[in-house]
């Protein structure tokens, strides 16, 4: 993204801001354990959990997941584990 004087931007630019860079812990989804209940998508405060291809399974969008861990805590079958990000 080129700089524009005064940090001006057209609408719809917020997806440029990849808030996933803030993350300390990354959620890892186990699709074997997942029952497809959709609780993770429902509780995600960023709205960045999306259905995984055509199956009734889910994946986080790591460009925007801030690693809050709410999905891991709420998952009824403990299919999500939080893993520390290493740079």
């Amino acid at each position, binding site marked *: 993204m080129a700089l*524009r004087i005064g*940090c*001006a931007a*057209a*609408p719809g630019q917020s997806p440029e801001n990849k808030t996933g860079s803030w993350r300390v812990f990354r959620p890892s989804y186990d699709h074997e354990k997942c029952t497809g209940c959709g609780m993770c998508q429902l509780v995600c405060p960023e709205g960045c959990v999306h259905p995984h291809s055509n199956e009734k399974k889910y994946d986080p969008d790591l460009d925007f997941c801030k690693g809050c861990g709410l999905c891991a805590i709420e998952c009824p079958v403990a299919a999500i584990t939080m893993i520390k990000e290493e740079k």
Partner: protein
Amino acid sequence: MKAILEGSHAAAEAARLCRPDVVSAYPITPQTHIVERLAEMVADEELDAEYICVESEFSALSACLGASAAGSRVYSATSSQGLLLMAEVCFNVSGMRQPIVMSIANRAVGAPLSIWNDMQDSISLRDCGWIQLYAEDAQEVHDFHYIAYKVAEDHQVLLPVFVCFDGFILSHTYEPVDIPTQAEVDAFLPPYKPYNMLDAKNPLSMGMYATPEYYMEFRYEHDKAMARSADIIRKVGKEFGQKFGRDYSNLVESYHLDDAEVAIVAMGSISGTIKDAIDEMRADGKKVGLLRIITYRPFPAEDIAKALKGIKKVGVFEKNLSVGARMKGCVGYEVKDAINDSSVSVLSYVGGLGGRDVTISDIKKMVSEIEAGRGDCFLGLRQELI
């Protein structure tokens, strides 16, 4: 046309002739007469502008920022606590690169409450990213507004400007002021062409969120624009001189510096008193000169170094106090840095705070202190009170 005007009205007349689309301000002593006069002009249809009445300075500058973002030429004015209440918005205006011009009738900052003059208000906002010009007399107060708009709106600059002048000393005293005609001003200052503006047909947000990957580059660009403004001020000041006969192509003014052994550095109206003191001292054989800083931001370091070259004793008269700083005043440090020569003595003298009168004899005393190498202190304290 020459008129006898108080400094406040010299500012208001210039603001009117610059044809602002929007004026928003909140009255505060000693700025009040400026905005009172502009409100009259709008009410009497002498000025075709929207005058937005607000409940505070924070709102005044916020209204100005919105109006400027919407593509208007905008004017405001304030002093002291009013400017400090605007502080947050000042950073937003400059960061969004909106070319607002605001007059500052310089006043002390409380507590203790003081309505009188010093430069603590605008110098406290040194780092807010606005260009800062300091006028010596009512004519400069008037002329600097034309130059301010033309520099601010240059697409190489796009920065807001404080036109600073000493409260009461300039704002409330009457002097002859040469006022150009509207046609002359229009020929010098064309209608405002915004670089970016809010437009429903072409939506845009300004001052957007910048992540750590972008923020520093925006600050870098802001600083580059300020650096570029120095040459634009010189160019516009020269053009003003060609059109109106008063040249402002220098960011500093030199007075008897050529053969000076002692130099005083100062800003604003005190320079008049210092020039009178220099005339008296020169009649007594003392080789003293004055360097007046006109643009405090951008800081004209090279111009200062050049003007003071070869002078070994320099004293900076400061109408501000940086509490806890070794030199006491803010300006001295940058003058010292500009000279950057350990064989030169550069000392600060804080004086005239809260409206304390500064006389010719005070300046002569300051010169003897500079000669003795004593400084980085207050000047003119009442010893019986401390």
